[in-house]
């Protein structure tokens, strides 16, 4: 086989660089476009939520879903069965379904189709009744059988039954006679054709080899040996791998070494190999794009990871050469064609040569006809006839009538029906929340707060804030993106590497280090030595136990002792975690540390005096934070700033639980840095000159809130002035009480926690989950997120939002004429929150197509991601255990501003306009001065009208959620009168 069959078209210039011909340029273009369809998930240790369909954001939501569904072959809405279940659970109202249908059909709704049934009637009837599905053979058998029965029991058969059979038969026949064109798309890849015809999956052969090789090629440190020639690129490494031991390859790949030998030419271009494969397989130029896209998507996880590493080489210790994706595709197509040949040979016992293969495949493709599915429209028609009372007149239907009916059924397809349900599903949810926000009675005027506490906007902090306000009304809470405007590379004590702590779209320009206080250097050093020695020893033991010599000694000698910690951790997870913590040196607080925050050199850098921020940078960051959150006056004596993080064990997806605004890491360091900045007297002077006057007695205290254990910790407590310690102790008590209540509220979602669990048990329960090796749901992450409310806390305070709302503090009265603050906030919050939301959305809709399936068989691979079991595609997206309780709805942004301002901002930022106008998020505005809302429909805002349902009021969150597992509505929580009841009731 000559790889360079078309080198004649190639022109080689003097430097020996291949100039690409037109075909190759086209191929390059196709590959770079297709690459963007691949999953955009990088190494799993920094899990960043993103919209898996980000490439489709410039299309309308529904249209984007239809197109994506065709490309990816995944589900795009929940199944009709699921929607009907939600309907019966009351999470969808049929009245909403009707209304949405009417709006969608518009003026054509009342068009009479047949027998006084309008289009609206027909569509509604299809929505009301779950479609009956049956295969062709099943229905034939049924009809034949019932005819037989009729014959046998004719004298006794009731007319009804006879009529039904006749009706069914005439519906099936009537529809079958019509010539409705059905979608006749043929699969792009021959693998699908061959699988259809022979039942042999060529991908099984190819993927087994390719997955194993990709794992070795991309490995970032799990394997002991490195793949030889890895740095020279995919093809080169693959060639050397195959040629060195050709006899070990499967028999299907016998000719592989010969073909690969030709790739060692210095002028070799992977595009030649691709072209060659396209030629052998006989792919026409017009089919190149879909064919290549589908070939890349065949193992999209691995291909996507190659693309990720190529585009972001800084994220991994071992980057790969820049055209690896093309090389990967070349090898993929080469293997595909060998596997196809093999299957052909086995099934026809004729050896398909280069030329015959093409023709054979062409014949196969042409002869392949997807059987038109005439049964399900027939069954639909039957159910329509029953529902709409056509039964008596059905005999008189002409073939034109049948065509009309078939057309109606065809045009209101499964995808359209699910869309209607989806919209109704959202409508129900949104209405409850907006109603509750608009009807909340005005808060009683109170004394100014004693404390302020700033949390991340994360919806998991919503309940913490609510409980804190319930426990101690002297707290005012605020929400800001959890990196608190201090983007930085951070290196903790006992750490060697910097971690970026900021949203993924920002690249930090500054470095910050945690160092021990001068007087504790000695303690620090000895601790560091202990930690290093222990870590080294444990790693040596681990590696040793895997080898042969040390393995024998270790397993025969002391192996049996491991059963003790194993039994302890499994039977008593919480206790063993305590024991372990006791013996972990880095957890013992032998000494105080501080952040090296101030830079004494001009240029920022990771070493020495380059570390840190300059004074003016600190002031700028601090000021922006204060202005964004609207915290520019009425400073309390003590202001807490809480970053958040999550603890879990045995959890490859741990990073997905940490702070998204910190790039999937815990955000404690940011909170600590910000409070240190705002406590700085010199910063305060600059702020004062800029119009923000922070009183001298105000002290900022950084902290970390653990969302899985529901614990809080504080940084730099030793710096707290003596005068504040009493207030601090009091605040701490309230915070801890709020933590407990928060844990209690979370427990209602865990089936293994009894509904009548007490406060203390609840706290112990959530803590136990985080230490449990066997726990696939240490916490539920961002599950159930549905709203993002940008505005003053005053608007949402006292509403039970069920941990479903991102809460961003924004004070419209403090924004400038240009609305720069809102613009800034939305530019960060909209992409991040909608990314989280849409990742959950799709992972819930198709858990194995968009998500990574169930966690249970996950197998960490190549230090990059997880596979299902032994050799599967790299699984991207969220595991089922995380999205299980999520409701697949788009995020509703509720923004406290006016319609004009909002439209102006969308005009200014095309990416946001794409998201909002195309419906990837829903947008509504809350009028800053009145209890009115408007919803974005198309490109204009229309007033929202309150529903008649009255929003109930409870005295505490506990009174409402106690004893309930499912999704709840959002009642008002009246001011603190009954707030202490929980302690009495739940601590029993």
């Amino acid at each position, binding site marked *: 086989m000559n790889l360079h069959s078309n080198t004649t078209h190639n022109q080689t210039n003097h430097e020996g660089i291949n100039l690409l011909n037109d075909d190759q340029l086209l191929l390059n273009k196709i590959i770079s476009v297709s690459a963007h369809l691949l999953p955009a998930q990088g190494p799993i240790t920094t899990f960043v939520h993103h919209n898996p369909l980000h490439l489709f954001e410039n299309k309308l939501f529904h249209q984007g879903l239809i197109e994506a569904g065709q490309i990816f072959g995944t589900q795009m809405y929940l199944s009709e069965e699921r929607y009907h279940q939600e309907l019966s659970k009351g999470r969808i109202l049929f009245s909403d379904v009707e209304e949405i249908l009417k709006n969608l059909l518009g003026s054509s709704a009342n068009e009479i189709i047949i027998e006084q049934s309008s289009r609206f009637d027909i569509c509604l009837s299809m929505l009301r009744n779950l479609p009956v599905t049956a295969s062709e053979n099943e229905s034939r058998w049924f009809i034949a059988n019932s005819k037989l029965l009729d014959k046998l029991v004719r004298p006794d058969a009731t007319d009804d039954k006879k009529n039904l059979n006749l009706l069914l038969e005439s519906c099936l026949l009537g529809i079958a006679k019509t010539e409705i064109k059905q979608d006749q798309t043929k699969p792009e890849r021959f693998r699908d054709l061959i699988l259809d*015809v022979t039942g042999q999956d060529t991908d*099984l052969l190819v993927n087994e080899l390719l997955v194993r090789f990709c794992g*070795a090629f991309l490995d*970032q*440190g*799990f*394997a*002991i*040996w490195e*793949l*030889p*020639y890895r740095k020279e690129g995919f093809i080169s490494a693959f060639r*050397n*791998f195959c040629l*060195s031991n050709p006899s*070990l*390859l*499967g*028999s299907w790949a016998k000719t592989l070494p010969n073909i690969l030998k030709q790739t060692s030419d210095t002028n070799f271009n992977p595009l030649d190999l691709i072209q060659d494969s396209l030629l052998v397989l006989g792919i026409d130029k017009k089919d190149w794009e879909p064919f290549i896209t589908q070939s890349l998507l065949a193992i999209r996880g691995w291909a996507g990871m190659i693309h990720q590493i190529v585009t972001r080489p800084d994220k991994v*210790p071992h980057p790969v050469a820049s055209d690896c994706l093309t090389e990967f595709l070349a090898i993929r197509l080469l293997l595909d064609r060998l596997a196809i040949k093999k299957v052909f040979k086995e*099934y026809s*016992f004729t050896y398909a040569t280069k030329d015959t293969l093409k023709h054979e495949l062409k014949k196969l493709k042409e002869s392949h006809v997807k059987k038109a599915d005439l049964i399900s429209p027939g069954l639909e028609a039957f159910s329509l006839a029953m529902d709409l009372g056509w039964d008596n007149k059905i005999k008189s239907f002409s073939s034109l009538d049948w065509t009309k009916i078939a057309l109606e059924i065809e045009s209101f397809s499964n995808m359209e029906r699910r869309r209607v349900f989806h919209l109704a599903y959202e409508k129900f949810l949104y209405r409850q929340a907006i109603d509750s926000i608009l009807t909340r009675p005005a808060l009683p005027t109170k004394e100014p707060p004693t404390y302020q506490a700033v949390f991340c906007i994360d919806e998991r902090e919503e309940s913490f804030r609510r409980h804190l306000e319930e426990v101690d009304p002297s707290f005012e809470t605020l929400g800001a993106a959890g990196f608190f405007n201090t983007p930085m590379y951070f290196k903790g004590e006992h*750490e*060697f*590497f910097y971690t970026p702590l900021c949203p993924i779209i920002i690249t930090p320009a500054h470095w910050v280090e945690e160092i021990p206080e001068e007087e504790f250097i000695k303690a620090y050093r000895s601790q560091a030595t202990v930690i290093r020695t222990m*870590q080294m020893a444990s790693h040596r033991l681990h590696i040793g*136990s*895997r*080898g*042969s010599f040390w*393995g024998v000694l270790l*397993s*025969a*000698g002391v*192996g*049996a002792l*491991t*059963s003790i910690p*194993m*039994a302890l951790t*499994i*039977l008593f997870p919480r206790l063993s975690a305590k024991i372990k913590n006791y013996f972990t040196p*880095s957890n013992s607080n032998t000494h105080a540390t501080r952040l090296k925050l101030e830079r004494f050199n001009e240029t920022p850098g990771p070493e020495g005096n380059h570390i840190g921020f300059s004074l003016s940078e600190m002031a700028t960051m601090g000021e922006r934070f204060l202005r964004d959150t609207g915290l520019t006056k009425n400073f309390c004596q003590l202001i807490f700033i809480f970053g958040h993080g999550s603890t879990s064990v*045995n*959890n*490859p997806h*741990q990073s997905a639980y940490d702070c998204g605004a910190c790039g999937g890491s815990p955000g404690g360091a940011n909170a600590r840095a910000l409070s240190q900045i705002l406590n700085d007297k010199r910063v305060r002077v600059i702020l004062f000159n800029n119009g923000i006057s922070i009183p001298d007695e105000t002290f900022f205290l950084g902290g970390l809130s653990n969302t899985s254990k529901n614990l809080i910790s504080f940084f730099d407590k030793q710096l707290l002035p003596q005068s504040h310690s009493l207030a601090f102790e009091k605040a701490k008590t309230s915070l801890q009480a709020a933590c407990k209540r928060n844990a209690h509220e979370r427990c209602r979602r865990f089936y293994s926690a009894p509904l009548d669990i007490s406060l203390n048990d609840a706290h112990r329960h959530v803590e136990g989950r985080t230490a449990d*090796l*066997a726990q696939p*749901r240490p916490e539920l992450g961002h599950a159930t997120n549905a709203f993002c409310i940008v505005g003053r806390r005053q608007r949402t305070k006292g509403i039970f939002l069920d941990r479903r709302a991102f809460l961003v503090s924004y004070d419209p009265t403090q924004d400038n004429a240009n609305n720069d603050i809102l613009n800034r906030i939305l530019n960060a919050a909209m992409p991040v929150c909608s990314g989280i939301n849409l990742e959950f959305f799709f992972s819930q809709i198709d858990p*194995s197509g968009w998500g990574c399936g169930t966690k249970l*068989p996950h197998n*960490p*691979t*190549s*230090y990059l991601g997880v596979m*299902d*079991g*032994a050799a*599967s595609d790299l699984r991207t997206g969220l595991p089922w255990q995380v999205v299980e309780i999520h409701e697949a709805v788009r995020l509703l942004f509720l923004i406290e501003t006016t319609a004009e301002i909002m439209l102006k901002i969308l005009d200014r930022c095309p990416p946001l306009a794409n998201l909002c106008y195309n419906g990837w998020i829903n947008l509504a505005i809350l009028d800053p001065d009145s209890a009115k809302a408007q919803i974005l429909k198309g490109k204009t805002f229309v007033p929202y009208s309150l529903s008649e349902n009255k929003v109930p009021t409870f005295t505490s969150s506990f009174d409402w959620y106690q004893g309930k597992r499912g999704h709840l509505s959002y009642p008002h929580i009246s001011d603190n009168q009954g707030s202490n009841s929980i302690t009495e009731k739940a601590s029993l």
Partner: protein
Amino acid sequence: MSRLETSLDFFASMGIFSPIALACFFVLAFILHIKLPEKFIALVVQLSVFISLSGIVSLGTLFLYNKLNKFEYEPFPTFHLESFHFDFQFYFDWLSLSFATLALSLCFVIAFFSQRYMHGEPGYQRFFVLYSIFVSGIVIASLAGTIEALFVGWEMVGLSSSLLVAFFHERIMPTRNGLHLWVIYRISDAALFGASYLLHHALGEGFFKIIIEQGKDGLVNEASSAILIGAGALIFMAASCKSALFPFSGWLPRAMEGPTPSSAIFYGALSIHLGAFLLLRLNPIIQLSPTLAWVVVFMGLLTALFSGIIANAQTDIKSILAYATLTQVGMIVAEIGFGFEILPLMHIIGHASLRTYQFLRAPSSFQYYKSLEDSLGKTDLNKNSTTIIPSYFSLVLYSFALNRGGMDSMLERFIARPFLMVFKFADIIEKKWLLILNGTQKVTSSDGVTK
């Protein structure tokens, strides 16, 4: 019957019948489509394994207290046909008691693990049905006193293992790999069946006690020692399949498709050691022929060597652990071939505990490596730069390792393919004959490809 014997009988029946009763109950409920609540399932599993474990432990205590060495327990009347006996007898001695205690303790702990790990999984009940079959199987196999009893336990372990590999049957790979395992296990069963035939032929009955008590020297004097050596070879064959020795190692990494706890207990701990245990149990037969013993040593060391090499190139944690397990199993088998008794047993117990723990913690790898790298200040902690130098030899070694020694493709090429080709050829011939007989000219084969 003395009081001692009564209590021994009682504890033995506790140990053996508690899991069997559980398995029967679960299978029955499963067949009748009775959906049991999660908590109930977990509770009865834990209870039954606990009862069984306490029976075995009490028996061990009685052994210690009364300075017993062995005890035979025969729950069913035997079937005699002239000189042939078919017996279902259990044989308790230190070896079987230790292995059963190990198996049951691990099963007990894993039952708790799985209760939480499998929570909410649609296949929760199915998992525990298979789990209970496995527990019964491993108890029967480890305590078996006759080859018939062993065979029953052996089958139950094999069946439940394969079905658990195929646990996530909505995907194709688990079912294929489950089938792969099932085929290898069938070879093992066939070999064991042959061995049982030869044992009966040689000894007239399948009692292990004859072999164990007469020992190597006693057996040499048997008239039919040549047949016994044949049985020994078949037993080794059966054990090789079960313990994934060379050249059957290919199935072990494929078996990692099930949920993590099943991978841990089956392929880190019990199933994989069952072959070695069998060799240890019937060691006198192996030692009967020095040649056979050397073959066992050689194959054990070869397995250890190969999997030691292969493990270096694996990039996913479960395959890495699978080959690490295999290295140790190879060493254990070699120790058995050398005729050791205590060492392999200790090795099995220690290794099973260690590896189970490592398997269970496999999902922690990312966190583990990250914290390790951060505190030690270097990446590539595993990489050993001296072992691999870019020379031709290291490249050959590497591709040997990444191809997993080509064992599967070897089996495919020399065993599976010839079989399939013969069948396919027969299929074609049959069709051609049918054409002639029918007098039809043009026909498309059943798979639709027009010839």
